[in-house]
């Protein structure tokens, strides 16, 4: 009896979460997958098994090569943001985490500083986005300051509604997702390993490269997954900061949903999901997260 209980206990303990995930995650995903093969009119969707939606998602994509079709261009643009934002947040996040773990000596101070990194999340996403306008706009604070000190004679337009502002906002939003997991892995590095490296004559860079980075790999991988999935699916930040002039996969899906074209939106969502999963799968080739957790 006791043996039975202990054998089944973990399953019972995992069941609530499993059920929640099944109902609110797996099931909707399956529905999305099913609907992506349905047909639709302006006001109805009909169960079917057609690949038209995928065909129109990639309409003329092969025919128009080497020119890129809308879908390829959209994903390429999203991937470009993804790469830039990932690199910047990685460097920033790693540096901040390194500083907090190895440079800050007091535990209280470390806690306070770590909490400060969450400041960007003290207000809603939309308000945060809108506040960039008075800062970066044509008549915004930055432009007015640059004009008044005589660095420029005309306001800089590229500060807002540009690739620059999109990257800025995405970095601002996502750096903390990189900091936290890296901080977590780094703080578990045995300090004596670092001392041993120094004692055996390694330079600061050699220690960083051969000791600290390999031991922070799990945190880097988890942070990367957070950042990449958020940026790939983002359409609110890209929309608001890009002045809606920059396409994103999410925005394409949104305008199709608004036009009641649910099946084609579902097809695009499946494509997006597949691409994100491929990126994560590639990432996991390099780091075995489970082994290190």
């Amino acid at each position, binding site marked *: 009896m006791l043996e039975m209980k202990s054998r089944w206990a973990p399953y019972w303990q995992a069941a609530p979460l499993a059920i929640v995930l099944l109902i609110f995650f797996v099931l909707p995903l399956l529905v999305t997958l099913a609907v992506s093969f349905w047909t639709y009119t302006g*006001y*109805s969707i009909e169960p079917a098994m057609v690949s038209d939606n995928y065909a129109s998602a990639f309409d003329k994509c092969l025919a128009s090569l080497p020119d890129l079709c809308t879908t390829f*261009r*959209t994903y390429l643009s999203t991937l470009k943001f993804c790469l830039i934002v990932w690199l910047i947040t990685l460097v920033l996040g790693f540096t901040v985490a390194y500083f907090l773990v190895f440079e800050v000596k007091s535990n209280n101070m470390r806690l306070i500083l770590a909490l400060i990194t969450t400041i960007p999340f003290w207000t809603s996403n939309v308000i945060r986005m809108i506040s960039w306008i008075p800062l970066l706009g*044509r008549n915004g604070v930055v432009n007015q300051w640059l004009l008044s000190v005589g660095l420029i004679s005309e306001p800089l337009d590229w500060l807002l509604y540009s690739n620059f502002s999109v990257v800025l906002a995405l970095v601002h939003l996502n750096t903390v997702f990189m900091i936290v997991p890296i901080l977590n892995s780094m703080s578990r590095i045995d300090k004596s390993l670092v001392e041993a490296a120094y004692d055996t004559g390694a330079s600061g860079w050699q220690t960083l490269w051969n000791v600290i980075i390999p031991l922070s790999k799990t945190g880097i991988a988890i942070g990367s997954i957070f950042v990449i999935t958020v940026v790939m699916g983002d359409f609110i930040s890209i929309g608001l900061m890009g002045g*809606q002039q920059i396409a994103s996969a999410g925005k394409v899906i949104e305008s199709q949903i608004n036009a009641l074209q649910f099946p084609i939106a579902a097809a695009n969502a499946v494509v997006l999901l597949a691409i994100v999963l491929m990126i994560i799968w590639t990432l996991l080739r390099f780091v075995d997260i489970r082994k290190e957790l």
Partner: protein
Amino acid sequence: MNDKTKNGISQSGISRRTLLKGSAITAGFLGTTAVTGFPAVHADEPITLRYLSTATNQSAAIAAKAKEITGINIEYVTVTTDDVTKRIITQPDSFDLVDTEYFSLRNLIPSGNFQAIDANKVKLVDKLATAITKGEVDGKKIGHQGTAPHKVLYLEKQRGKTFANEQTEWLTLIPTTYNADTLGIRPDLIKRPIESWAELLNPEFKGKASILNIPSIGIMDAAMVNEALGTVKYGDKGNMTKEEIDKTIATLIEAKKAGQFRAFWSDFNESVNLMASGETVIQSMWSPAVTAVRLKGIPCTFQPLKEGYRAWASGFGLPKTLKGKQLDAAYEFINWFLDGWAGAHLNRQGYYAAVLDTAQANMEPFEWAFWMEGKPAEKDILGPDGGLLEKAGSVRDGGSYNTRMGAVACWNSIMDENAYMIQKWNEFIAA
């Protein structure tokens, strides 16, 4: 769907709590739940109507006045333009009354989620503005391109799915508000007269123009521009052929690549921010957004243009499932709405009321002269909330009702090639 779940949860919650505690409060709660489920049982309880629409058409003042006069509780359900349509198609039981645009009827009516409104139960049905019922203003025909309301106003039968070509006693929507839209400009920054839609793509305003990113409306503004430029000749701007869509989008893409647009906007507040901050000086705009910019003390004009206006109209529709006392209450509310108080309230926001006579009876003569006759304001013009809108002596942009509505060139619409249009629009955004 939503409601069923909600009731299911609350009922099971109650039975358990009743068993456990049996308190008086719980019993009272149970009572109210029963009323919501079966309103007919408690005849003297006030009736609540769930009123689905965008924020623009909702006002706490109208709900309060309706409660005072008719005793009906209005419970606003606020969503965006696209979501109104989505809710009607996907959750037709989640509202009792909807205020939606005529142009979406081409998708809504075939879904069968509406019941037509019985003309015999609407007292002022013969007084509805001719701009809506016949596409005429002051006896003269106005632009009929697009989904002009008179084309989709009547059904052949109450549960019908086809529009009638002539007047019947089954109306799809009873009009609430309508207006003529044009470009908004910053006269202080442009410093010269603007007379044509073509100016939106004038390189003079490079990096300072905007168009709205709601495809079905944005494409119409783009068509007005293309027609004004002479680049495309349209059979019907509101129902383009694939070739016309291609050409329209091509012009937009060219302008976008040349850096003409500062940003696109898709909601009211974005358009206000762009204009008020000076990021844009010329853009697609809605009338209350122009007012909002002006209320900040920033000059902004809802500029009349020689090619005319793009008009829209919205109205009350009834879900197919509404019946009994709720249905009677909906008719009572619609009748009250047309009776003038609400109409006057809407006229003061710069919209137009469905029944003009009764709205006039509820406005001061100087207000009527300013809003509807295009005359200089004799006194300061106050908004519905009592705030100062216009100083004495000013004239409404575009002038009188007859001049503005008389110059309508086309109506918001859903095209036959809607799916193709959306695809091309996404191409424009990605360009």
